């Protein structure tokens, strides 16, 4: 029994059990073949993609996976409910080449096209018989029919889902053949349910850290519970208003990054369960290898020097810096619902005060916070950035390209736009790496820590592995040994 939420049409992890992705992704964010597609080719002009499909795969209702269903699926993506996805809006034509080969032609080259086919909420392959009307290329999904390891036996809206293994023979008698899916919205109650033995596994149902860090030591003390964590490179960051206000000065941006003791923050506030983040994205990925050696190191003395150089001087008894009669006061918007946000905000406030910056914390409901962000009405804004598969392109196109509508006040300039556009066109690691290095050199944000995903399960649960994507869930290898 696992804990989570059942939704229809969203990036819900339950769907990862029911549907296969068109293409998969590895832990480094590279597209790989899937159960449905064995390989693909791209034409030199970047306009045509040919997909070679695997044979012998059927949907839960017996519909065969072949070029006909693949052609329908890609057309449905570009004409139906997923047509607002940029990658699918680029599709001009889908053609069947032979029984197990389809060809897609784009209107214009789009480097991230293959990548889009790996992202769960875009690429879960649904059966043409599960939309209404069946086989319609703009039909609405009315039932859960995929090719995944589990199929839906029963589903009671807002309450429960019962899944059974699609092919019991492959279970070999030891793998789990049934999943009861329940919803426990409160994370503390989820931990209690695991400790009480009511559920077998928790924390796998959310793409954020749904198990509170402070409860990790409690679970680790329980001899019947195993806790595991994984990084998808999803960083919790403070985005800075680089358009106006104090952070429009690069020296102030660098200063705040040097003034934050991230090691201490993680150890004392997050039970040591997270990893400090010292670069705009994690340098362990090939697409951000250029960031190695650029990590921020705690250096409040240098931070003070930078602020002095920027003209912000301590003049009054309160220790808050001033420039041209104006105090160095900044507004830090914290959207409600961000994990660990309150304690981290207070910590940042105290760290910034040490170098003479007065941080005013403004906790806002997420919709209201988003409205302020869209207008650029903030100096600092807490944001959970992108993880695999949202990396490497997500932070660049979503936040730092000047066309990023949700982040008009993030760092933008023509050179960065060019670097991002080049990376998007080539999809090459070195080009992404160049764009990230430039962002880091401009101190575009204040990275805080890596939001690691946490799974906790009973000792009797064996063979659990984290999926390769932050939005994925794979229980096909799990078995229960009492």
């Amino acid at each position: 029994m696992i804990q989570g939420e059942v939704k229809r049409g969203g990036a819900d992890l339950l769907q990862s059990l029911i549907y296969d992705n068109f293409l998969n992704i590895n832990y480094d964010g590279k597209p790989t073949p899937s159960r449905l597609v064995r390989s693909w080719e791209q034409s030199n002009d970047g306009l045509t993609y040919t997909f070679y499909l695997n044979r012998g795969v059927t949907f839960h209702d017996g519909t065969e996976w072949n070029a006909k269903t693949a052609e329908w699926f890609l057309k449905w993506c570009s004409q139906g409910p997923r047509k607002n996805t940029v990658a699918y809006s680029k599709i001009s034509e889908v053609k069947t080449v032979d029984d197990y080969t389809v060809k897609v032609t784009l209107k214009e080259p789009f480097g991230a096209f293959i990548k889009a086919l790996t992202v769960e909420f875009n690429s879960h392959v649904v059966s043409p018989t599960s939309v209404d009307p069946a086989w319609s290329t703009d039909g609405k999904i009315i039932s859960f029919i995929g090719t995944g390891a589990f199929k839906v036996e029963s589903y009671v809206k807002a309450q429960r889902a019962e899944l059974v293994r699609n092919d019991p023979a492959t279970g070999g008698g030891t793998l789990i053949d049934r999943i009861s899916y329940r919803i426990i919205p409160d994370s503390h109650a989820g931990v209690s349910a695991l400790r009480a033995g009511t559920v077998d596994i928790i924390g796998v149902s959310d793409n954020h850290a749904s198990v509170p860090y402070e409860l990790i030591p409690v679970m680790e003390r329980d001899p019947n519970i195993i806790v595991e964590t994984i990084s998808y490179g999803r960083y919790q960051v403070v985005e800075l208003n680089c358009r106006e206000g104090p952070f429009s000065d690069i020296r102030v941006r660098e200063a705040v990054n040097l003034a934050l003791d991230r090691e201490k923050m993680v150890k004392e506030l997050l039970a040591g369960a997270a990893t400090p983040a010292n670069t705009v994205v994690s340098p362990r990925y090939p697409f951000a290898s250029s960031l190695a050696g650029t990590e921020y190191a705690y250096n409040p003395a240098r931070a003070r020097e930078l602020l002095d150089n920027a003209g912000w001087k301590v003049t009054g008894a309160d220790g808050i810096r001033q420039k041209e009669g104006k105090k160095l006061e900044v507004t830090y918007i914290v959207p409600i619902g961000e994990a660990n946000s309150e304690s981290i905000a207070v910590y940042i406030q105290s760290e910034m005060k040490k170098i003479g910056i007065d941080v005013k914390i403004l906790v806002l409901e997420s919709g209201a916070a988003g409205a302020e962000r869209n207008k650029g009405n903030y100096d600092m804004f807490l944001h959970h950035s992108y993880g695999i598969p949202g990396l490497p392109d997500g932070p660049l196109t979503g936040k730092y390209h000047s066309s990023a509508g949700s982040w008009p006040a993030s760092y933008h300039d023509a050179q960065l736009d060019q670097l991002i556009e080049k990376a998007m066109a080539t999809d090459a690691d070195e080009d992404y790496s160049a764009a990230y290095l430039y962002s880091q050199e401009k101190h575009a944000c204040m990275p805080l820590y890596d939001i690691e995903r946490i799974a906790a399960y009973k000792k009797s649960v064996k063979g659990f592995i984290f999926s390769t994507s932050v939005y994925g869930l794979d229980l096909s290898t799990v078995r229960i040994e009492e």
Partner: protein
Amino acid sequence: MAGEISFFLARRIPWAILTIFLASLLAFSIIFFAPGNPAEVILTQIYGNEPERDAVILFIEQNALDVPFIKQYTTWTTGLFYGSLGTSLRTGDPVLEEFIVRFPATVILALSAITFALVIGLSIGVLSAVRPHSPIDAFGNLIASLGSSIPSFWLGLLLILVFSIHLNLLPSFGYGGIEHLILPTIALGFLNVSKILRITRESMIDALSEDYVFEAYAKGLREKAVVIRHAFRNASVPIVTQTGLELGALLGGTVIIEQIFGWPGIGSFLLSSVMSRDYPVIAGFVLLIALIYVIVNILVDIIYIYIDPRIQPGGKTHA
């Protein structure tokens, strides 16, 4: 009496309809004019990060979110006359369906919690009033103080810790059999125990000091008969009022208890709809919750007539 009730209903129903409409208008307009864009909030929930600008524009167009407030509200109210409360922006399903699938769970928990509160609150309240300053009265005071000072979420987690984790007697969450109902009922009902206990004790003490009670004792009636037939009946009007108010509130959904116990009621869904700016759900749910409140209030007024025929429905008292 039937005539009185008919007259009362004829007077109350138009006001009730107006109240319900005003509540939904208020809910619709507050959320509409609150900062935050439903397209962006909902797509962020789906995608896990801020959506692309094109996706937001398309969502706005598909759901006609760019038309003026008056037009959106008029469209929604017009739908009411055809029995439609609109469609949820988040789930794409009819609002009425979203309500109907969740409301039975809310009703079960509300009735269970109020029954628990009535049984405990009335019993201890009456005994406390009959034996003031006795050990049972002291116990009643303790329960009342605890009930009004312990937050229900804390009590819920404590109950899970004791009965689910340590004693392993009851499930810590879920919806289904009677065993799933026990802990949320106690967590939710305990505050109401305190309220009903206090009001029962005070009303009974007042009633027991009335002349007709002494007269009843003087006539040789036994204590049980005096307390139940004479004093309690007269003391029950404020208890019914309090119970009606509490039941109305419980039927409006209980977010925290639903979240802790994974109880699939309307409260959590309404809260997440508010967070998502899902106007049709908010307006529809508020309309239905207001309707329930009004019905409970009317029923309470009717019960008054049966308890105390001196009371005229609608609040007046016969001279």
